[in-house]
């Protein structure tokens, strides 16, 4: 049979390597579940073309070029907004549509016709988190720590700040530079500032350090974060420590039994998958999103009736799909999925698993 190529533009190394790998796992699982697609009456084998964008806006474009040059019909990814924005023009020039999975920064899809996405956006997520901080903790003052030069981090921090201030709260903002692993000063500053919540939309790597050091310094504020923190890295870091961690996310394990079981089996079937998932079979929300994204791509291919990227791009606008993380339907302006709720979870430091807190929307 003929093959159709789907590009996977994800980080396997760098700051976002851990998250990128989990997202890729979801895609791979979906691919193993449904390895073929029927396009225009013909059966095609779906081949995943996976490249590593190294979490870097500098190396990303070359990786993107590789995909375009390889002749993929559609690209999935990336985890991390900065790399997605950086590759946007490469995909545009190559005429290849791209489907963002968990890149939540608005700029990814803004003003271009080839980048779509299936997740909610940071203005939404930031507001959700601000509301949550207000509702749950009656927070008046928030300490916001973002990473310098990270679009995801800066974006989410920005929208959170805006929303929180609109709600009448006060915000202390700080940034940490690349390569920083000493967070004790930031934690001290948060304490000294008298903040009620500590909001840190960062990569999981920084997150683990923050949790560890917050615990060591006896910080008794709730730690809040966005979707990136929904990872077993966080669970492990928090396990057995005296910390409270809350995250907003796309998916809650248990949301879809079939998917959960299949995914776990897939992870456990291969030691490499297990390692890529961080050593256990906790399902990350990004994996679920990756899974959905793969099926959205298949829908688009079917709708286009062709493997021609231009046609796929055209078809994407009208694709709808009911996935494990909810319904995907793109708005006609930017190609963003329309979503209005996020899940909130908290890390259970005893069991080392996520506890469901609730769904939170925006009033």
């Amino acid at each position: 049979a003929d093959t159709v190529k789907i590009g996977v533009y994800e980080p396997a190394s760098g700051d976002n390597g851990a998250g990128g790998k989990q997202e890729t796992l979801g895609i791979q699982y979906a691919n193993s579940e449904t390895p073929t697609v029927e396009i225009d009456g013909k059966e095609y084998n779906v081949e995943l073309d996976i490249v590593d964008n190294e979490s870097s806006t500098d190396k990303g474009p070359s990786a993107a070029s590789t995909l375009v040059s390889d002749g993929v019909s559609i690209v999935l990814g990336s985890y991390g907004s900065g790399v997605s924005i950086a590759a946007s023009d490469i995909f545009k020039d190559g005429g290849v549509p791209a489907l963002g999975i968990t890149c939540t920064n608005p700029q990814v899809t803004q003003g271009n016709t080839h980048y779509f996405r299936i997740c909610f956006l940071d203005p939404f997520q930031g507001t959700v988190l601000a509301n949550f901080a207000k509702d749950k903790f009656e927070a008046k003052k928030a300490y916001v720590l973002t990473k310098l030069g990270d679009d995801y981090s800066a974006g989410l921090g920005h929208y959170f700040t805006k929303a929180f201030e609109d709600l009448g709260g006060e915000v202390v903002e700080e940034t940490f530079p690349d390569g920083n692993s000493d967070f004790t000063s930031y934690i001290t500053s948060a304490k000294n500032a008298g903040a009620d919540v500590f909001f840190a939309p960062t990569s999981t790597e920084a997150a683990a350090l923050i949790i560890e050091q917050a615990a060591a310094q006896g910080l008794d504020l709730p730690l809040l974060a966005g979707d990136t923190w929904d990872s077993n890295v966080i669970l492990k870091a928090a396990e057995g420590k005296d910390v409270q961690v809350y995250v907003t996310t796309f998916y809650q394990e248990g949301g879809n039994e079939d998917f959960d079981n299949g995914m776990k089996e897939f992870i456990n079937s291969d030691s490499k998958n297990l390692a890529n998932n961080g050593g256990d079979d906790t399902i990350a929300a990004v994996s679920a999103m990756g899974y959905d994204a793969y099926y959205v791509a298949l829908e688009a291919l079917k709708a286009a009736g062709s493997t021609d990227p231009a046609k796929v791009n055209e078809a994407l606008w009208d694709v709808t799909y009911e996935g494990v993380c909810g319904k995907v339907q793109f708005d006609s302006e930017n190609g963003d999925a329309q979503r209005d709720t996020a899940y909130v979870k908290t890390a259970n430091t005893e069991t080392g698993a996520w506890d469901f807190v609730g769904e939170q929307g925006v009033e």
Partner: protein
Amino acid sequence: MEWFNQNLPYFLAGISVGGQYALIAIGYTMVYGILRLINFAHGDIFMVAGLIMVYLSASLPIYISIPIMIVATVIIGFLIERVAYKPLRQAPRMSIMISAIGVSYLLQNLALYITGGLAQQYPAIPWISDTIEIFGSVTKRVTVITPILTIVLVFALVFLIKKTKIGMAMRAASKDFETSQLMGIKINSVISMTFIIGSFLAAVASLLYFSNYTGVVPTSGAMPGLKAFVAAVFGGIGSIPGAVIGAFIIGICENIIKGMGMTTFSDAFTFALLIVILIAKPTGLFGEKVTDKV
């Protein structure tokens, strides 16, 4: 008192991180002193030491892992010198430095390959990882141990270099290999010795550092390495007390800057301070003046 309580943690963090920088910086300074080589791979040796510990402690008890980790790190440092620097003894300085950059790349990429790029959780070392309270600030015990251990090690080293025969051989070799050989000094052993000491200190530093900042990633060595290197230059490269003082100054300033809320500039400030010092004193605080006799 309020002020004191609020700012003590910054100082504690500064002193502790300064001590760790100091241990790494000595490695730079010693190698530079003898080979005139900025050993870019030094920070990565530090990172590798961290990874070794992670993997060892997964299957062995801590008290066995620690000595094995130190020995393994020392062997790696030794081998790197033999394989990547020794063949270039006669080559221009730039080549050795590039070789060092190459080794640094290789170590990072190997670490990336082996760990799959995922952060590895450093094991908690009993006693030194415990949380203690100092004047009301909560911190890990390692914070206090670091500066003390650093100072002890430094005194030992200074004695070694100033007062012992091998120390004199090191200083002689640092200026002129050929003539040192004529004096019967075994250049290769002296250089190996330097790398062994440097790697040993890097291993100790990694133990202290990662007990505090527990995630080990392939690039973990880059920033502490760079800072330590700056510290070495700051104090006058080649001078061990200089490196140590430089490291403490940088560690403390960095945390004060963060405490002041100028976090964007915490790294930049380190460099700015360095440049100011260099402009005032082109060979660092305690640097030997180059005697360029015409």
